[in-house]
């Protein structure tokens, strides 16, 4: 379905939420204060009972369109958000995510070009397993390869997606619980050869306690990725496994190389090349 280009904004920010009113407020109060940006804010709520709807209806916050009703999961909600979106680019800022500051969106808008997928960097906050929970910047890749997707994904909080990709290649796969956005990125880039650009600037803040980074979801996360790879790229799987194995071995060698025993042996001249 085409939209009328004359009235459509450049960016649609889609926020999905379920029973997470405080985080929703954090996100919306941040997007509402973005300066000089041509965007619309869409909220898809999963029939929350914790007052999320009151947050959405808060007249101080900017929400252009919203819906609240039961849904089967994250990706059904995101698909609903897509259908409500009218912008040329879509950005998924889920409940709790937010921009780094109130100039972030204007900064990003000024840099967007024609590429299908455009990623900025993210600031990771409160991720206990790395850097002791300290903030750190996670860069998006310069050139996302198949092996990159085999171990990582693009950060959805800072990836602008041309909305027509969904019209050309379909919406998110709602049969997946956690990795449907990863699957979409993988297929767009590795199968459909969509154009990609990395803008090396931090755009938004990601909190390390999100759905896909919870330890209890790790198993299902891995299983779903494996399932998608088997369905879509079975012939590549052995290559990816070999590469992963090779990378792990290389890492072990690196650790070994830095170890005290090896350095001692090198120090006394018993080991030259390693």
């Amino acid at each position, binding site marked *: 379905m*085409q*939209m009328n280009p004359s009235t459509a904004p450049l960016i649609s920010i889609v926020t999905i939420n379920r029973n997470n009113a405080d985080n929703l407020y954090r996100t919306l109060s941040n997007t509402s204060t973005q300066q000089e940006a041509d965007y619309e804010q869409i909220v898809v709520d999963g029939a929350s009972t914790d007052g999320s709807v009151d947050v959405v*209806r808060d007249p101080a916050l900017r*929400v252009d*369109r919203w*819906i609240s*009703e039961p849904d089967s999961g994250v990706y059904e909600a995101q698909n609903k958000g897509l*259908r*409500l979106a009218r912008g040329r680019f879509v950005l998924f800022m889920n409940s709790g995510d937010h921009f780094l500051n109130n100039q972030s969106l204007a900064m990003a808008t000024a840099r967007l070009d024609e590429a299908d997928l455009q990623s900025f960097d993210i600031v990771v906050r409160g991720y206990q397993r790395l850097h002791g929970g300290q903030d750190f910047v996670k860069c998006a890749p310069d050139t996302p390869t198949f092996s990159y997707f085999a171990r990582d994904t693009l950060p959805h909080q800072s990836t602008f997606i041309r909305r027509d990709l969904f019209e050309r290649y379909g919406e998110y796969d709602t049969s997946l619980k956690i990795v449907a956005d990863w699957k979409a990125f993988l297929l767009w880039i590795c199968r459909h050869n969509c154009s990609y650009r990395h803008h090396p600037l931090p755009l938004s803040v990601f909190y390390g306690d999100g759905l896909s980074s919870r330890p209890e979801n790790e198993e299902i996360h891995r299983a779903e990725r494996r399932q998608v790879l088997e369905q879509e790229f079975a012939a590549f799987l052995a290559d990816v496994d070999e590469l992963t194995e090779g990378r792990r071995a290389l890492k072990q060698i690196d650790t070994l190389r830095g170890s005290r025993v090896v350095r001692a042996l090198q120090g006394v001249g018993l080991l030259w090349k390693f």
Partner: protein
Amino acid sequence: MCDNDPIVSVIVPCFKQACFLPACLASLQAQSMHDWEMVIVNDGSPDDAAQVATLLLRQDARVRFVEQRNAGPSAARNAGLRVSRGQYIQFLDADDLLAPTKLARHAAALDADSSLALIYGNAWYFDDANPAHRVRQGFGTNPNDDWIARLAADPGTWLSRLIQCNLMPICSPMFRRSLVDTAGLMDESLRALEDWEFWIRCANANDHFRFDPSPDVEALIRLHPSSASQNRAFMFGAELGMRVRTMAYLRDRKARRLMLACIGRALTYSDDARPTRVYAELATLARGLQERTAVWLAQRFGAHAPAHALIRPCLGLLPWYVRTLMAVR
């Protein structure tokens, strides 16, 4: 589309009409067909539409609710269209009602004939203050004029009938979702007559429409003291703008010629009632038109000084030999 999707999506835009929403839902609950969803789209209404809709949501699980910042009825209907899940679409304004068998009969007709794109029925206009009083024509001079049935019987194709005038109130038809996929959504930049433009675009995409004269499929349209149409000059400009815009996509040669004739007729309604703003709008739109249209406009209005002045920018689009033939500078 999943198995549990409803058959019909009823899209109800709501602006300052919260008080009618319960009656609107009741008219759907009274339908002989139960497999529908009602998508209420609150178009930033300043009244308590959201509260009323929340109550209705609890009352019936088939009700869905979307809210947007005020963006006009077309934007509201588009939002409803995009989140709806049914294979057939029925527009219903919050203050209007449907005959209890309308959804079932229309859906059965669309099921039976897979080439049929749109089916519509007749309508009554009714007045709250005087419930016994029902008329066939809500806004014209002759209340007994059965205009929907009369126009449906005109000769020609559906597209040619629609080009001459709007055939149906917005609550009358039920159409296939695939029609929207080919024709596109409603034009959000039109300030009036957006439904008429939409039906023309639909007929241009698939001319297979049908009128069902049965009283079982009628829509009931509420008359308000304020619902008299807007002032003449505004409607005149809106009609002209809408017609010129359709020239961008009308494919059929006969249809294009008929539309041009209608544009000509609209231009000659009355010289006095023709505000300069309309000329300006026409010139802007004409610039994007194909050459033939510009030639036609120049031929017809070349003698009319102010019109000529406004059409001149379009003449630049013409090749020199056409200009020489037409003897225009």
